[in-house]
């Protein structure tokens, strides 16, 4: 390598971010899926850790309550040998009135390589990229997106289907019919999932009462229906969303019982599904609302698999953003 080439590669690469599934596109998603396979193998080892991001620092900045996403990112960072810093709104200067900008600039000034951020305002992570030099990863912003959830959901489906086929290649989601059921209107998980599933070739059906459906679905690559029962028989995957009581300020549902009766995955609906259909939920599950207590524990339910894959896929995302370098 000549001196010129050395200087070229040692120049700090421009920070790269993951704000939306659209930042990746189909090729980017498939690359993350491919990387996830490599990290799935790492997580099966007796010592599930590699030195890939030694010396890097990942800060998790959560302005909204979350345990699983934050723990999942921190575990992923640690398994890559990165150092982690944790910021939670309730125990920090935010309660003293510090602005988001001052908070993230302060954390950035301590020297970090990536900031994983969750914020109640849609678009907050995008704003943060204008203020700091580190890579920004959106861990959920308002009702906008939650891209790593969609990536782990996609990986979980692909990996489960590969296991059934007994094949080697992950492939994509073409030919699959996936229903996303619940509060589509307020769900950032639904937005990211629609983009990811459609990019990988799936047909997506949104199932929700009219009050929980977005005002317009123009430009969304989906079908929509209010009739869950009619859709059941042809589904390959049923993806249930949590009814987010904390976001339902206005009265959009007569009662949670009625929601369960019309849109919940009851035992009767579960038995009307095709035998090989998969059941998914991003967690935390509210048994008795979106899903019956016993249905959540059926073998078709991939909920714990999703949590397991969350760590694997977030390792892939961190490595993809911090480990690749540019030339």
């Amino acid at each position, binding site marked *: 390598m000549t001196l010129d*080439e050395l200087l070229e*590669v*040692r120049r700090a*690469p421009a920070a790269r971010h993951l704000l939306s599934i659209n930042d990746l596109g189909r090729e980017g998603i498939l690359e993350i899926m491919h*990387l996830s*396979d*490599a990290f*799935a*193998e*790492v997580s099966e*080892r*007796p*010592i599930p*850790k*590699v*030195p*890939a*991001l030694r010396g*890097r620092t990942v800060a998790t900045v959560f302005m909204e309550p979350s345990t699983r996403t934050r723990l999942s990112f921190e575990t992923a960072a640690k398994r*890559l040998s990165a150092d982690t810093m944790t910021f939670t709104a309730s125990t920090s200067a935010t309660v003293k009135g510090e602005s988001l900008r001052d908070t993230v600039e302060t954390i950035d000034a301590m020297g970090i390589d990536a900031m994983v951020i969750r914020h109640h305002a849609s678009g907050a992570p995008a704003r943060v990229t204008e203020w700091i030099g580190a890579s920004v990863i959106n861990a959920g912003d308002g009702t906008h997106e939650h891209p790593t959830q969609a990536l782990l959901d996609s990986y979980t489906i692909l990996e489960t289907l590969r296991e059934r086929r007994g094949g080697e290649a992950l492939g994509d989601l073409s030919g699959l019919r996936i229903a996303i059921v619940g509060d589509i209107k307020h769900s950032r998980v639904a937005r990211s999932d629609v983009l990811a599933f459609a990019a990988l070739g799936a047909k997506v059906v949104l199932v929700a009462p009219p009050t929980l459906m977005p005002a317009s679905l123009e430009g969304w690559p989906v079908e929509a229906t209010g009739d869950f029962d009619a859709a059941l028989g042809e589904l390959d995957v049923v993806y249930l969303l949590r009814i987010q009581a904390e976001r339902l300020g206005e009265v959009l549902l007569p009662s949670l019982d009625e929601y369960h009766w019309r849109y919940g995955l009851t035992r009767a609906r579960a038995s009307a599904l095709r035998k090989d259909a998969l059941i998914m939920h991003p967690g935390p599950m509210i048994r008795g609302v979106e899903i019956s207590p016993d249905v959540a524990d059926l073998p078709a339910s991939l909920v714990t698999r999703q949590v397991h894959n969350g760590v694997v896929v977030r390792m892939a995302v961190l*490595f993809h953003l*911090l*480990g*690749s*370098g*540019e*030339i």
Partner: protein
Amino acid sequence: MADRERTARPAGRVFIARAQVMDADEVRRALMRIAHEIVERNRGLADVVVVGLQTGGVPLAVKLASMLAEIEGADVPLGSIDVAFYRDDIGLRPVHPEVVTDLPFDITGRVVVLVDDVLFTGRTVRAALEALAARGRAAEVQLAVMVDRGHRELPIRPDFVGKNLPTRRDESVEVSDEGVSIGDLVAPELERGAR
């Protein structure tokens, strides 16, 4: 050609062969000699396992394992490792794992014969040693390569060599089913001129 090598190169460069230095038969004979040397050095194959380095070392490791099985009449455990996550140039270059590591046995107490196509700076082998150490404590690690082209940057030497091939630093060496070639890495737009 090893994809691992290709990804470690500036994107888009292609290999243009200038001369063939070993043909397919010569590669096969060199591998057979290495197999006999491994059996001789280890006084048989008890505790010997063969591990190919992704991706260039893997086809050679597969052939080597079947030759060893033929010589001693017993199967030799065969695995492969991808060292992407252990490289020392992560963040400097695009580093991607090519194939998932497949090491379906415990290496603790075994004699691991690492197999790669080309030994150059030694950095891939260093990464492989770290990757192996993370999996267990091998009794011994031995290194078999088809081509040693020199220019080491680390104190690493091979135990078994197909061919010592003096090269310039800016040249490139390819090992494939057809044999071993020496040539140059060229940006695609210069490809025509180089031919």
